[in-house]
């Protein structure tokens, strides 16, 4: 798949970092403002997809990228399950999914216990999953349909 014109390439260079940072902001502030894990993860995936679309798929080794993002997705889910299971050991007596970190005051960034950690795990997972789907369809189109 060929890339786009030079205007698109220059603008993408400048702006995809800003989009990535915005996605991280939405994920980390998930307990204070609307958004959270899923919305922020989609935005991060959007920034990566924008890169691939603007520069074309010829000069990226897409198969390795896809294996990498697939492994990242599975590990993010495993981190989620490990944090949820840790509640069994540290929180109340043997309750799954309990909120075991101190809750802090309302409105601070570091508050609400385990919820920001869950948000980060979900954000990583959604971004990796969307990127894997996009790359898998792109690889199929490039190598099989032609």
């Amino acid at each position, binding site marked *: 798949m060929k890339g786009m014109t030079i205007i698109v390439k220059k603008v993408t260079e400048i702006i995809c970092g800003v989009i990535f940072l915005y996605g991280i902001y939405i994920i980390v502030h998930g307990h*204070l*403002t*609307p958004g*959270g894990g*899923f919305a922020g993860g989609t935005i991060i995936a959007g920034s990566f997809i924008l890169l691939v679309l603007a520069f074309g798929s010829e000069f990226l080794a897409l198969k390795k990228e896809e294996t990498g993002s697939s492994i990242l997705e599975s590990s993010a889910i495993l981190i989620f399950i490990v944090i949820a299971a840790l509640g069994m050991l540290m929180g109340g007596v043997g309750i799954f999914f309990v909120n075991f970190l101190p809750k802090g005051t*309302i*409105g601070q960034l570091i508050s609400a216990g385990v919820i920001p950690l869950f948000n980060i795990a979900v954000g990583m997972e*959604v971004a990796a999953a969307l990127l894997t*789907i996009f790359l*898998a*369809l792109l690889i*199929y*189109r490039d190598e*099989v*349909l032609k």
Partner: protein
Amino acid sequence: MIIYILTVFLFLIGLYGVIAKRNLIKIVIGIALMEYSVNLFLILIGYVRGGTAPILTEGLGQKVFVDPLPQAMVLTAIVIGLATTALLLAIAIRIYKKYGTFDIREIKNLKG
């Protein structure tokens, strides 16, 4: 009241797309339209007159919030809709490779 009827009407439009269209991609769009209408319906249920977004911030005072439970339901339903659409499209593109067409009148290998 009229809002809920319009939402169900959108659901029926999506259902018409699934039943009556011949192109595979139009069937997928019909299912996506049905999903959007059900998500819209779930959020509209939770509206409280004069309510604000259900987030606790400092300096709030006593306020009326809209119902947060349908919003959590709809977040999950959107993710499930994403997975369904992605799988449908992946299978549709492989059908195009094997059969050479998107028309469902040609894709009839399994009969009886």
